[in-house]
């Protein structure tokens, strides 16, 4: 059997098999999923560098599955995170209900994502895209009722996106008579400008929903928060990347990146790219601001994800070699660190049963490994050397500056810096400070959960030191997209030093960091133990119910400051739109008055109408 | 023979048709439903029988069938008139009367009482 269909069969088979055997035994179902994913992942590794192609016809439509470096890059993200998340789940899900359902949805999601990246035509792309939507929807609603509204919102927004995409791809089909990417690459420039713009907008809506780009992000925070943590890692790390993958396809494979570049360019960027760049930047900023005021650890990370995806989009939208590299690099990066962080938060939740930052504290001694992972994670997110985040962000700034988009660069930089405002809270509120009594007895999570987090942590360190290995892969992918490979000599950071020197920089930073870390810990050891309730406020003795943890309302002034901005919540606009629509539908249903005679009258009116327009019917 | 029958037939039919017309006229002109029935039953029955038997005479091979129809009309028309009169009366339709002559009213009351008792 061809490898690609084989992998797909394994993945889908695993989904079904783990559901079925899941009825029998817990270990069996988790085991089945892990084995299935490993097997598929192993086969997938063998696909690197091959041009494996498999095509057949369904209903007369050509279906093409193929492998290329870009697919392979994204495939790596999927499989890497999926396997780790599955292993993590092995412990995490133990004793939870409907694990069979969980495994099914998980494997289904992985399978569909893999399907997306191997698709060489729009039909199978869309087919898998839809499977991905519903299977991840099943995950979002895993926690029963509380998740329903979030799940529904996720699903509806996804459908809006998917249908925008569907419209676009059907228009393409109407124009070209085929769904194949190759034909679209060749045929795009032949479309009229208006059509190009339409297609571009529709595709962008489709992909932007999954990538949670503002203003289509409103599903993401709740969906991320409410899905089971191991899956959230996959969700934020890999699934949202499918939007990015789609954008990559749109810009560079379909050829939309050059859209209207002969008509209008702004600072050398085509107009859609420029607009998209702004959307990316605003998304980054908005995500960051929203993240700052969250009390829910996962929600915080969720908004952080939105922000990070904004960066990635920003990179892509520049359409330059460096921009794309930056985007892709940050995409991989984000998969790794957001995977880490979500798993870590999941681990904390696993032990404490809460996601509220304000309820936690002092876990550093109880969960040191997790602490370590979170620490590395926030360093990476913040884009500080020596970890991989630094490289990613640096590339983005450089790409922006290269195009003289100074203002955007400032925005991006601002958002990035602001990110630290929320990120450090993860450390402070969860691991530092006073530990509530009820958490005194908790232990570090089992190795089955520890290991995946640590693997990711090591990976981020590794990429921090050796970004080139990843950059190589990215370059291959870029070539396959028809973009000039990223020339390291263009980078301000990399041009004069070369590989070894970067390494040195990283090493220096690492050493400095390590010293700071030691100092920090020493300082912590010396610090005075403060009782949780011994702070007085305004001369009043706070009641028992008031938690005076310093994480509570820590950013109250800030939140108040940006409240104007935040209150205009897009999701509220959507909600009111939905309400109004339902109100409108409500009016429509009164057509069915319940009176049989009225229905008969409708028939007569319809007949009279047809008589009247009979000449049109000929 | 055939001619005589035919002649007879036409005569009969002519009378019949005429009586049908009288019947219809009676239906139209009589003052109340009972009197209309009087006119309708009698004149139209005779008229129909006459017409039909006349046709039976004109076409002697149809005679038996016309006879059956006539017998049927003779049997059924009075019955239906009676049923209608009784129905009308019991549904409360009053007679057009100069003087109050109604022996039936009491009988109806009695019979209804009997029915209820039964």
């Amino acid at each position, binding site marked *: 059997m061809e490898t690609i269909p084989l992998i797909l069969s394994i993945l889908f088979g695993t989904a079904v098999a783990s559901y079925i055997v899941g009825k029998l035994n817990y270990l069996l179902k988790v085991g089945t999923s892990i084995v299935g994913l490993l097997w598929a992942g192993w086969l997938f590794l063998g696909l690197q560098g091959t041009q494996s192609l498999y095509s057949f*016809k*369904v*209903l*007369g439509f050509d279906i093409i599955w193929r492998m290329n470096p870009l697919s392979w890059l994204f495939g790596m993200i999927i499989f890497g995170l999926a396997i780790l998340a599955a292993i993590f789940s092995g412990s995490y899900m133990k004793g939870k209900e409907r694990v069979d359902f969980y495994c099914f949805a998980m494997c289904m999601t992985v399978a569909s994502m893999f399907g997306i990246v191997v698709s060489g035509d729009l*039909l199978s792309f869309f*087919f*898998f895209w*839809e*499977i991905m*939507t*519903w299977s991840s929807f099943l995950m979002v*609603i895993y926690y*029963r*009722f*509380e*998740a*329903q509204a979030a*799940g*529904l919102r996720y*699903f*509806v927004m996804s*459908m*809006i996106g998917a*249908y925008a995409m*569907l*419209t676009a791809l*059907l*228009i393409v*089909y*109407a124009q070209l008579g085929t769904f194949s990417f190759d034909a679209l690459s060749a045929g795009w420039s032949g479309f009229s400008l208006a059509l190009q713009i339409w297609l571009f907008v529709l595709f962008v809506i489709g992909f932007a929903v999954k990538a949670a780009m503002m203003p289509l992000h409103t599903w993401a925070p709740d969906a991320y928060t409410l899905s089971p943590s191991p899956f959230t890692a996959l969700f934020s790390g890999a699934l949202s990347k499918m939007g990015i993958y789609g954008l990559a396809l749109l810009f560079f494979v379909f050829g939309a990146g050059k859209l209207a570049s002969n008509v209008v360019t702004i600072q050398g960027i085509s107009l859609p790219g420029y607009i998209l760049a702004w959307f990316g930047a605003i998304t980054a900023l908005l995500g960051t601001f929203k993240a700052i005021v969250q009390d829910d650890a996962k929600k915080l990370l969720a908004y952080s994800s939105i922000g990070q995806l904004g960066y990635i989009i920003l990179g892509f939208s520049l359409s330059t070699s460096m921009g794309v590299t930056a985007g892709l690099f940050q995409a991989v990066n984000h998969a790794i660190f957001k995977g880490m962080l979500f798993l870590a938060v999941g681990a904390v939740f696993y032990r404490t049963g809460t996601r509220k930052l304000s309820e936690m504290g002092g876990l550093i001694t109880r969960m040191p490994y997790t602490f370590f992972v979170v620490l590395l994670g926030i360093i990476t997110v913040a884009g500080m050397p020596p970890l991989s985040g630094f490289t990613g962000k640096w590339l983005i700034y450089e790409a922006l500056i290269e195009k003289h988009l100074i203002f955007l660069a400032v925005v991006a930089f601002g958002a990035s810096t602001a990110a630290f405002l929320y990120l450090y809270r993860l450390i402070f509120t969860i691991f530092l400070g006073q530990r509530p009594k009820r958490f005194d007895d908790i232990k570090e999570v089992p190795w089955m959960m520890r290991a995946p987090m640590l693997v990711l942590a090591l990976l981020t360190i590794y990429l921090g030191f050796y970004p080139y290995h990843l950059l190589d892969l990215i370059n291959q992918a870029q070539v396959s997209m028809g973009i000039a490979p990223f020339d390291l000599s263009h980078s301000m950071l990399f041009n004069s030093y070369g590989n070894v020197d970067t390494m040195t920089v990283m090493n220096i930073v690492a050493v400095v960091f390590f010293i700071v870390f030691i100092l920090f810990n020493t300082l912590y050891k010396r610090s005075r133990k403060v009782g949780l309730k011994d702070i007085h406020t305004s001369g009043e003795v706070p009641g028992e119910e008031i938690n005076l943890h310093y994480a509570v309302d820590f950013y109250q002034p800030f939140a108040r400051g940006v409240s104007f901005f935040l209150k205009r919540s897009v999701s509220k606009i959507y909600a009111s739109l939905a309400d109004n629509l*339902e109100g*409108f*539908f*409500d009016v*429509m*249903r009164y*057509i*069915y008055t*319940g009176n*049989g*005679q*009225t*229905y*008969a009258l*409708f*028939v*007569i*009116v*319809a*007949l009279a109408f*047809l*008589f009247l*327009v*009979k*000449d*049109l*019917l*000929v | 023979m055939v001619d005589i029958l035919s002649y007879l037939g036409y005569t009969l039919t002519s009378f019949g048709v005429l009586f049908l017309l009288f019947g219809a006229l009676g239906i139209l002109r009589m003052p109340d439903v009972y009197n209309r029935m009087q006119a309708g039953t009698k004149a139209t029955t005779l008229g129909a029988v006459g017409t039909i038997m006349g046709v039976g005479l004109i076409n002697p091979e149809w005679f038996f069938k016309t006879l059956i129809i006539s017998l049927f009309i003779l049997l059924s028309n009075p019955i239906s008139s009676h049923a209608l009169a009784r129905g009308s009366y019991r549904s409360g339709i009053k007679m057009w009367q100069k003087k109050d002559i109604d022996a039936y009213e009491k009988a109806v009351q009695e019979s209804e009482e009997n029915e209820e008792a039964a």
Partner: protein
Amino acid sequence: MYLDPVLMIALPLFAAFLIPPLARISKGLVKYVPVLIIGFNLYEMVMLLPHSMVKPVIVVIAAWAPPLGINLTIGPLGNILALIISLVGFVVAIYNIRFMEEEPNEKYHMLFLLLTAGATGMVLTGDIFNMFVFLEITSISSYALTAFLRDRDGAEAAFKYLLIGSLASTFILLGIALIYATTGTLNMAQIAVRIKDVDPRIAIMALILLVTGFGIEAEMFPLNGWAPDAYSQAPTPIGAAFGGIVVKAGVYALARLVYTIFDFQGIFHFILIAGIITLLIAEMSAIRQKQLKRMLAFSSIGQMGLVLIALGLATTRGVEGGLFQMFNHAMIKPLLFLSAGYLVFYSGSKNIEDMDGMGRVKPLLSFFFAFGAFAILGLPPLSGFWSKFIILSETIRNGFIAIAALALFGSIIEAVYYLRVVGRLYFKAPHEGLHVQYVPKSALVAMGILAIITLIAGLYPDFVMVYLKPAAAELLDKTVYIKSVLMAGL
């Protein structure tokens, strides 16, 4: 190996006539009669498939070749539709085995059997008046079945259905009268030949009358006022049969009219527009429904709207998509109805809000409902995806992008209301004091069959499409149909 196809009509009627004496011998046996007879029909249709795909099978009745006598014309289209009808009928008959305990239940089975037979007759017959007769058989059994439970709402729904259905009969009959008066024949193939010579002013009126009549059966807006009531108040399996059987026959008739018999192009645009309006209004109404089965009813109308859009496109691919959608809808909507029936039964309420937590109480039942919901939303890899995809693809390919967009908008509404229900099933705590019993095996088997077909047709759509292609071709190229019928007369 197939027996004479006329048996597909003759046997159900025969069986129906014999049910009363059989019921006096053994009440228990009666409910297996429909299973047996419709099972036979199913067998026949499957066995005929390879033959009808090659060329229409003409079955002469009473030894008079068409157009002198009535004939059955079993082309690909008729065969496929009769197959769908028999399949749904068979499944529902299985479901009925343990469903209808209400007296006089032998009448219920009899009416159901005749409903199926009538619809089968409609799609097989080659004579337009005969089609009317079979339509009446179908409709009258539907009216009676709608009110079968003798409850308050059933009677109301049945009366509305009967009222509108009678108007449909009137218009159809008037249309047939015009056709006969101008062509001198009732054989559809011959009408198709002769209609060209008919004064177009008359022909278009005949078409309008017939389209209105059959549009009522096909649930075209605004002719579908009866549908939500009838669907939701009829006994559950009958609601399923409406969606899977009755409407299908109505749409068949509509398609036969506009494609084979008449030759007017403008009518296609009308059907297209009627389709999108039907779809939108139905979906908008569905989302505001409080009762589960009523919601399903509106959804059913919406689906038929999609079919009408497909038929209105009048392209090969579009018709293929429309037929595929009909097939899918015929599998999925009964699945939804059948599962909803027991959900309603066990929750003791028709209202959606009382379905809370049924997923925990009745997992398999709820699974079937959710499965059906996903399938009807057109989520891959279930079969609904492909038909929707083809239809939309053709809609856009023909330049009706706005219609496609509106249809997609309708789909989103559909997703909202279906997922709301699914959400309640799984994600809310069940009400207390639920009167939960064991779901009969026969019902689960019935639902299982439908679910499996939906899955297989989704994973391997070509398996279905192989048979739909000739059916679509039959509609778009009427010469084969006409020739094979009229040749049978020589």
